[in-house]
């Protein structure tokens, strides 16, 4: 530890002696710390990127981190980067961290994200007209439980995901009551139970996600998202309310980094800027673990072997 401190110290001295030009900035031996979250595509992606950085000569460490709290950790430099900033889920935390400083936006992946109301395929038989939201609303009573009866029950994500489902239900005048699950696991447990019994269910889901590989299903089509829907009441079908639309069907998936990363590991930062994954690539990463039951590290190796042409250019 002492040696590490000394090393950091001398590196700092060297950097300040050479001035802020960064022309002679040295690549640090310190490990680049990559956070892993609690969904498998992200963990595999982290290992894919980690292994790439190792091939480029960097030390890499992984640390499990909460997916919201991670932005604070990136800001403080406790973790070096973040590979999956979902517009819908983490945009707010990311923007808040940007405002506080210490974190930088390193560009978007090719992949787009979508998070919205979703149903398993067998529901189309039970409720004709899906995926249209008005058709869903007509079948609302099928989704009722004792607590929500006679209204239907929509199983939403945890409250801290801030999806404004209640506002949408109100704005569109739907006969649904929003029930918040406490975790993603809770969503999948209900989905698993319901689809085993082919019971009606409509719940919050997103893509890319391993669920696509296990269950067939579709997103509900709400009035299409447009700028102004969330803050301008005049926008959309309901002229008095905001949130009268679905979530963006093409949300961004960003990369972010600690603002000291570029100076400390310039080469690694270049790689981070270049790399970009597509929806099918991410889905494949998830499936390697969730369907083929590989360990994340193994899955990363498999993916790297199969996709050399994808990542080769990033390392140059």
């Amino acid at each position, binding site marked *: 530890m002492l040696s590490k401190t000394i090393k950091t110290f001398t590196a700092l001295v060297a950097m300040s002696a050479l001035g802020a030009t960064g022309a002679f900035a040295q690549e640090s031996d310190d490990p680049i*710390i990559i956070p892993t979250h*609690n969904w*498998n595509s992200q963990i595999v992606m982290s290992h894919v990127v980690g292994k790439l950085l190792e091939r480029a000569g960097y030390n890499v460490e992984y640390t*499990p981190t909460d997916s919201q709290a991670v932005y604070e950790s990136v800001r403080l430099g406790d973790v070096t980067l973040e590979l999956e900033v979902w517009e819908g889920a983490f945009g707010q935390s990311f923007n808040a961290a940007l405002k506080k400083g210490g974190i930088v936006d390193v560009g978007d992946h090719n992949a787009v994200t979508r998070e919205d109301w979703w149903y398993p395929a067998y529901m189309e038989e039970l409720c004709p007209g899906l995926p249209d939201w008005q058709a869903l609303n007509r079948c609302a009573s099928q989704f009722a*439980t004792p607590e929500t009866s006679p209204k239907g029950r929509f199983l939403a994500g945890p409250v801290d995901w801030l999806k404004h489902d209640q506002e949408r239900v109100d704005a569109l005048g739907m006969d649904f009551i929003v029930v*918040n699950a406490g975790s993603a696991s*809770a969503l999948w447990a209900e989905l698993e*139970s319901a689809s085993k*019994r082919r019971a009606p269910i409509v719940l919050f889901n997103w893509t890319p996600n391993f669920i696509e590989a296990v269950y067939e299903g579709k997103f509900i089509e709400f009035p299409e998202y447009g700028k102004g829907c969330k803050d301008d009441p005049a926008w959309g079908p309901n002229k008095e309310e905001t949130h009268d639309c679905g979530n963006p069907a093409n949300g961004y998936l960003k990369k972010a980094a600690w603002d000291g990363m570029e100076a400390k590991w310039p080469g690694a930062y270049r790689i981070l800027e270049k790399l970009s994954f597509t929806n099918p690539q991410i889905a494949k990463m998830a499936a390697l673990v*969730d369907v083929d039951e590989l360990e994340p590290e193994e899955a990363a190796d498999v993916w790297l072997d199969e996709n050399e042409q994808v990542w080769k250019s990033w390392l140059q």
Partner: protein
Amino acid sequence: MMLARPWLPDALLRPPAVLLLPFADWLNAFSDYLQNDLQLTIFTRAIADVVQFILDVVNNFLLGGRKGLGLPAVPWLTVAALAGLLGYFLGGTRLALLSGGTFTYLALFGQWKLAMQTLALVFVSAPAAVLIGLLLGIAAQRKRWLEVSIAPLLNIAQSLPHFSYLLPVVIFFGVGHHAGAIATIIFATPPMIRMTLLGLKRIQPEIIEAGRTSGCSPRQRLWLVEVPSARQEIMVGINQVIMQCLAMVVIASFIGAPGLGYKLLLLLQSLRIGDAIEIGVSIVLIAIMLDRLTLAWAYRVPEYHGDERFLVRHKYLLGAIALAAVSIAIAALEPYFYFIPRREGLSTGFLWDPIVDWITLNLFDPLQVFRHFVALYILIPVRDLYQWAPFSAVMLLYTGLGWCIGGRTCALLIFSFLGFIALSGWWDRAMITAYMITVAVSVCIVLGLTLGIWASRSPSRAKRALLLCDTFQTFPSFIYLIPVIMLFQVNDLSAIAAVTIYAMIPAVRYTIEGLRNVPVPLQEAVTSAGANRLQRLVQLELPLALPHIMVGINQTVMFSLFMVVIAAFIGTQDLGQEMMRALSFNDLGKGLVLGFCVAFLGLTIDQLVSHWERRRKRELGLAE
């Protein structure tokens, strides 16, 4: 006041907004002050580096790798063999099988790496917690002011939900393996302080005088006389520390601790319940093994070997060296005995999934009726009642109860606990928590007492029931959540069911202990008076065991408060859910205030029950 509700002013129904105090803002300001003005983070980060370094060394020893000392890992066969020998040394064949068998299980099921990461965390956190606890306990015994000021802090610390510790740790120590270790240390230290203090206080004064008249300097007296004399309590403290460490395994993974806990959450996330249960079994095995080993160590009576021949005297040491050499040689020849990767390990996952499927398919519909009934006729009315009750009436009721049972101090404490909740602005959420706890604890009492009475009727049954209690207590409660949701969906009933499963453990345990510890002469007296089994139970055993059972019920309340926070992962609207939200948004102040609210709910009940129990024990002449 309940009846007069319609005429009460609003200010007595809900805590008026003008009175609410921004505790959370104060805490955040304080935290900012510590971080930015005092630069405390420089200090805490230095500690974090030290902890990380120690972890690296331990990790390196167990798993090999570049970090730490850069040594190759010890083969699993060696670890299992040495653990078996240690078990034999401390407790004979059964313990040898348990400890050797646990490590063999971990290896064969391909969980070696995860388990070693978890063990590294325990091996670093537990000694640190023991050391800190021991020193603080000693200091508190020396300095009266410290003892007086540390007692309430310990009470609060032991009733704060695990999650409350996480945010401050993240802010001051960062995230990662070391942060998990530090959170675990903080969580595990209080019982050690308590047991050290208790042990030191229980030493006969004569022993201390014997030390003084033998000419001990104060330091000699402490380390050669007092600490060894308090050995049993200190060992029980160490045992509790280890149990607390394992209770934190899953939760520590929220802030970056790798290992079994992290894997468990991931598996649950992708609904691989069978694999998750396997991990749960690993955690239980590790916990029970460490528990039995430390207990065997605690109660081990020293033996004298000074006059035996060298070979005999050092037989265990020599045996260990021989075992290590042989097992390393075997592992060198056959890599299977060195390390078994996950994919080559055994798995019973395929067994469990059909069971879970069968349960969902076949039990869901029959339970539907039950679910509707409970939701409509029990949960919703109770919930509404708790929400409807004026806060002033609730406070008055409990303060009054405190006055009757425990006198003025007790009443004052309860008033300030509930007052804090009211002024913090979380009264409504706290009432939801209170309602869930009330229902869960009521069910626990009915079921737990019944089970406990049934199990206490024969010694062997009692023993098996207690082992089951140990198992369930260390089984990671997160695993219950998934099947419960599958059966009851996301709603309060699921949360209450999950809480009930976990919180029933102490109710059962203490009922068994209480009933089995009724003094034999009394039992004989009642039997010779012609009482049958039922009469003996009702007339003698239950009344005498009741104080102890009440301790169990008190624990049940504590357990249910811990679990209700975890049940937020199902989806609730109570304090626990808000705490998760605070955690997500790095709101340290809010997280702590919510933690205090939960702790104060628990402490209110604790005040009432423990005062009653102490008084009752005195009346029965059972007090120490």
